[in-house]
């Protein structure tokens, strides 16, 4: 953990790639301002909890003296308190250490193009499962995700996708009775 590339500072990346936005780069000297976004999201969630709870009928019976409202209201208030404390912490220069991992290179800027492409591929595949069936949507999902992540062996990626889609379909849908649709391949598979 501590002995990783101490000499390379994030802002000295010699090869700026065109898709960097800088929004989620490493902590810079001015602090990590993107944290305010997370802070705002917490505050909004707190308000939503409270507003949603006030909408509930205050049903209190002798069997349930508390009713459904107090828990979300308390959570909402605590959420607002934490949001304020979080904002103070950010102002003081507090930074949350980003998660590390074997394949995570935090010295590079966030690659939003890959993430965006993955979101699109995942969303489209999700919409296609019902009409086209698991095997086709799953194959597309695998191929599209591996493409987004930098795979350029298109045929191989597609073949692996088709293979694992078919294997999972037969093993889980036919074998274990798990709910995966056959879609337009109904009758063929």
């Amino acid at each position, binding site marked *: 953990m501590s002995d990783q590339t101490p000499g390379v500072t994030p802002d000295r990346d010699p090869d700026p790639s065109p898709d960097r936005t800088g929004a989620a780069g490493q902590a810079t000297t001015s602090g990590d301002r993107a944290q305010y976004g997370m802070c705002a999201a917490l505050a909004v969630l707190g308000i939503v909890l409270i507003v949603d709870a006030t909408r509930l009928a205050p049903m209190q019976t002798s069997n349930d003296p508390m009713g459904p409202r107090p828990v979300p209201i308390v959570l909402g208030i605590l959420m607002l308190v934490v949001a304020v404390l979080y904002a103070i912490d950010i102002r003081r220069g507090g930074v949350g250490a980003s998660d590390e991992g074997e394949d995570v290179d935090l010295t590079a800027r966030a690659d939003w193009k890959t993430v965006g492409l*993955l979101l699109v591929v995942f969303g489209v595949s999700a919409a296609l*499962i019902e009409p086209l069936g698991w095997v086709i949507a799953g194959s597309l999902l695998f191929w599209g995700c591996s493409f987004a*992540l930098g795979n350029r062996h298109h045929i191989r990626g597609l073949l692996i996708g088709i293979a694992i889609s078919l294997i999972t379909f037969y093993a889980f849908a036919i074998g274990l009775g798990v709910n995966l649709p056959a879609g337009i391949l109904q009758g063929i598979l």
Partner: protein
Amino acid sequence: MDNLNNLIEGFGHILTPINLLYAFVGVTVGTAVGVLPGIGPAMTLALLLPITFGLDPTQAMILFCGVFYGGMYGGSTTSILLNTPGESSSVVTALEGNKMAKAGRAAQALATAAIGSFVAGTIATLLLAFVMPQVVAFAIKLGSPDYLAIIMLAFVGAAAVLGSSRIRGFASLLIGLAIGIVGIDRVTGQQRMTFDLPQLADGIDIVVVAVGLFAVGEALWVAAHLRRKAGSVIPVGKPWMGREDWRRSWKPWLRGTALGFPFGAIPAGGAEVPTFLSYVTERKLTKHPEEFGKGAIEGVAGPEAANNASAAGTLVPLLAIGLPTNATAAIMLSALQGWGLDPGPLLIEKQPVLVWTLVASLFVGNTMLLLLNLPLAPAWAKLLQIPRPYLYAGILFFAAMGAWTVNGQAFDLYLLLAIGLLGFAIRRFGFPVLPLIIGVILAPIAELHLRRSLQLSHGDLSGLVGGPVSWVCYAVIAVAILWPLIARLIRTAGGNGGPGSGPGQHTTISTEASA
């Protein structure tokens, strides 16, 4: 020796071909995911959840525990051969283990890790078999107020004690609790946080939450920061140890076990603290202090033993009181709930076959793991060469499948994506994931005990403090929350009153429970 009889009976159940097969599949999958970057036992269990709801609970739990134990073994292989550890519990192993590997002693590092894990796992499982019934005997007398206090302690422990930032820990916990209350209120039938979406009326399924957080979140996070040049894996032959290595390893194994088991069992335990403590202990006690930092075998043997012992320790509160202390245990708990079993002190009474077969399966699985890992370590290391685009595409593929099988609707996949983005955000901003998942899973149970306590006291808030257990829990919670203040007071009283060093920077190791 009632426990011993139960355990022997458990062995009778585990030694059937089909149960042995599930144990074997579990430890094999576990080792593989432990070795593979980006996947850990928690994510694997989340992905397996929807499939295993069709299985017999006993067999599924054998499978789960095999994955859990196997992940601990596999994680050490990665951290020794490839410096960057994936599992948060093997961070410490990488410190000395990778140095040993670089010095040409990878075989010994792997051997002391595997044999130490086996020794620690076996002793700790034995401890589990004898401690768990005691905890059950104690827990069975507890009432709702006490349970509520214990759950609150688990919440505060996960949010405030672990991790480097208490604010981020509590934020994470609150997000989890907010997700946990979505759906129809069980008592009054009113919809909370559903925004009139019928798909949310039953709450957000735990499969969607867990797969979104661990699998989709991790895949998106790695995608944003994918290391274009894969780390170099140190080649290794068959693990073995010389006489000197044995002599230097056995004491750290035992000390690691002694540290790991109790820490696994307490709320806010997990493997991070004991592995770190074990490392510090071994560095202090070693006769070869000059080797520390350059590849000392004690620094691998101790933490690896602590790591595996804590895995067994985790199962004590899970099986005895239904309290998860790490992310993997949290998913096992939701699996038990999914089968309609009521995790808690009554589990061992109502499902003795499940519990004791499970405990017996841990001994069997541990032995299988030693046989799988000792001779086959070089083969497992080959998994590290899998092309990353395929690996993470595969994770997203299985994530989509898992979420689809819950209700068979595309809505769950969009929800999965949203929770995946939340998982991305918490990784980006350094929020710990453990309080979040514990919050989601325990929120309904906590509210149930809260309302039951108030029902018993007819709405009087004094009903929340039941017996000595709840007093102790709330006292510990108060100390944990007020700790920065207390620490500052002690410091000023001590005379060297510098400015308080910011809120809660009292742990030096990162404890983000990696998926």
